[in-house]
């Protein structure tokens, strides 16, 4: 039963994410790139094709795999934060590592309901999740306290505190659950601690379900923000078609210098 609960939470999570982020797939916008851009040949010094005179006459190959490599680098290590805030970087890295360990166990646990997975592997995943819970608790606590101190306190809304508390709760029930997995409690207390697995998994499902409503999906958002920051594609026929459509939208801005006409009519200062 709990397997199905978790599975459906994951399914709903993915649907919500898809709905939430689908608008960014079809987005057109003006260029607002910031260098260095990983798919540029001159990436090392942050250069672009504009470094060549008559750049439009040159053909430049841009290895797209760099984009993926850089995004993965940001997701996994995040050097930028490491250089500016090493302490905070370490805490968030450990916290996220804990979440990752925990997620591996959940995945294994779901899989074992449908496939025959050796108990050895499950035990290892449990051990990983146990350490994961410790990391989540310790570093989550640090992040929570950090957010309570000024000036961060003035920036972090209640919702973000609540989510972190939820994660800390999850880490605590997780910890008890994994301790129980290793049978360290006296036998007569076993049923009491066993119930933590149920509580833990229900909490986990609830968290997964609520994630699309929170900022926690920043891990997905950062892919889109970087794709925008790295978008230095020059005008093409395909792009022109999509842009023309936008330029023919009517605008309603109230300032005197903007006519209530389309974008292009404004640009060309077309009289009525």
């Amino acid at each position, binding site marked *: 039963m709990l397997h199905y609960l978790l599975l459906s939470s994951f399914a709903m999570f993915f649907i919500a994410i898809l709905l939430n982020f689908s608008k960014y797939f079809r987005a057109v916008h003006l260029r607002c790139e*910031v260098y260095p851009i990983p798919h540029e040949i001159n990436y090392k010094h942050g250069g672009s094709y504009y470094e060549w005179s008559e750049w439009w006459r040159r053909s430049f190959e841009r290895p797209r795999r760099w984009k993926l490599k850089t995004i993965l680098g940001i997701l996994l290590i995040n050097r930028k934060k490491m250089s500016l805030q090493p302490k905070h970087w370490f805490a968030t890295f450990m916290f996220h590592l804990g979440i990752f360990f925990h997620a591996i166990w959940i995945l294994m646990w779901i899989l074992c309901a449908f496939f025959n997975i050796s108990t050895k592997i499950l035990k290892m995943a449990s051990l990983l999740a146990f350490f994961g819970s410790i990391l989540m608790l310790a570093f989550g606590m640090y992040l929570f306290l950090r957010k309570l101190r000024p000036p961060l306190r003035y920036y972090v809304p209640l919702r973000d505190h609540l989510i972190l508390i939820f994660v800390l709760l999850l880490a605590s029930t997780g910890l008890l659950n994994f301790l129980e997995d290793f049978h360290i409690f006296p036998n007569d207390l076993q049923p009491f601690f066993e119930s933590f697995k149920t509580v833990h998994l229900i909490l986990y499902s609830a968290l997964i379900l609520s994630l699309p409503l929170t900022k926690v999906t920043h891990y997905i958002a*950062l892919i889109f923000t970087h794709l925008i920051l790295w978008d230095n594609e020059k005008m093409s026929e395909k792009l022109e078609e999509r842009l023309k459509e936008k330029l023919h939208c009517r605008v309603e801005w109230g300032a005197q210098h903007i006519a209530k006409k389309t*974008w292009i009519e404004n640009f060309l200062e077309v009289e009525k």
Partner: protein
Amino acid sequence: MKDQIKLSDVLKEGQLLKIGPEDLIKLPNYDFKDEFKEINPEWKKYVFELDGFIGIDLEWKPKNKEEENELLLKFTEGLKKLLSEENNWTFLYPLLLSLDYCTRCKSCSSACHVYLASGKKEIYRPTFRSEILRRIIKKSKFGKKLFGSLDVNKNLILRLAELAYRCNLCRRCVQFCPLGIDNGLITREIRKLYSQELGVAPKALHEKGTVQQLNIGSSTGLRSEGFRSIIKFVEEEIFERTGKKIKIPVDEKGSDILLLHNAGDYLSRLENVMAFAIIFEEASLSWTLSSEAFGYDAVNYGIWYDDFQLGKIAFKHLEIARKLEVNRVVVGECGHAHKALISVADRLIFGEYQIPRESCLPILLDLVKKKLNLDPEKNSFPVTLHDPCNIVRLMGVVEPQREILRKICPSFKEMKPNGVYNYCCGGGGGLAIMNSLNFPEFRNKISSRVKFCQILDAFRDVLNSESKKYVCAPCSNCRATIRDFLDYYKAKDKFKIDCCGLAELIVNSMVDFDGFLE
């Protein structure tokens, strides 16, 4: 006035921050005393309630309840339009992502020169203004406590507008944000809301900037006739300085290149215009200037505050190129004009207006490598390079200018940090041209301070009044900003530091042209 300013403090009456000399970061190797004057009481009719500086030189404070309600109404309307696809497809998606996913980790703060220079004053933190916008948007959607929403009142509206002009739009902060949240872009969107809905923007940018340019052809007020007589004067001046007779091509149809300069260069310092003419003629390029309205002023201040002014001016520039039937447009040493015409406008124009456009820097490099006869020893003085954000961080033109300097200036030394991770000169985002009331004080003391520290550091081994030294800044607005703060910090007298363009240094090293920089 408190040390720890909270977001909700923007709703309150009175001046939010008063900054003093003790707050500013110390200058390296230089004991300089900044003086802060009390605000002129007459200026209190402007919005001074943020930090005592006035960026928006309009009297737009509501005088009664009726005007206050109208202000609130317009602001709310503007907010809706900012978030609607029809009215703001240009930057809506980057804006939404940046508004929705900041985790308040604060990594961006230590990347911002304004925040650092001010002694880490809360209101200059890159996220401060973004967070205000975020919270007033959330207000209309969800619960107050849960999301920490802010109410909107007149104090918030007035202060938020000023706050949007305490940022150079240099976008260094986004390079250091692990999530790619763009506080510079959010700031420009805030400026747009005020300009496009309320008609509120600094006069230098709007009334005397884009509006004047669209009416006359140049934000400087320079007209065609004036331009032609300046060109005559430039030719005479070149002859006087170098003994060479040069005929500057103007309105020559069918030329390969249309060269666009920032019109400010025709009016204040002609060296850069002269240097380009000498280099292009010496290299026998097929090029022309234009004497038609818009053709002699590359600037496009719309890039800093208004999408509509941006688009209108970009079309005007390309209309000139189309009429002159040139093969390409080359933008001279003007950073924001580079960005506006070469890259941002790329997605606004199409068809016959899509004429190839490029930076002057790679062309100068080609000429230095292949066509010009140079003697680097003529530039033996210490030189450092300022990287204009618009050309370097935001367009990726990084190497050509340094390759040139390595070839023509034997004592060239980089600032730290440099290239795409440079610091803004402090004049970015339009602040360079906002010179009314007490705003230059903000620029010189706060937004330019880190750049001045970098310059002092680059010249630390030669920081004396004996030898001349140059900061090379291949951008007209950066040069104006740097010259202004070198004056303010008395660095010209004390250390003989001056600022010049790249083309001037090239001409100064040309074998046949003696003492050009003198």
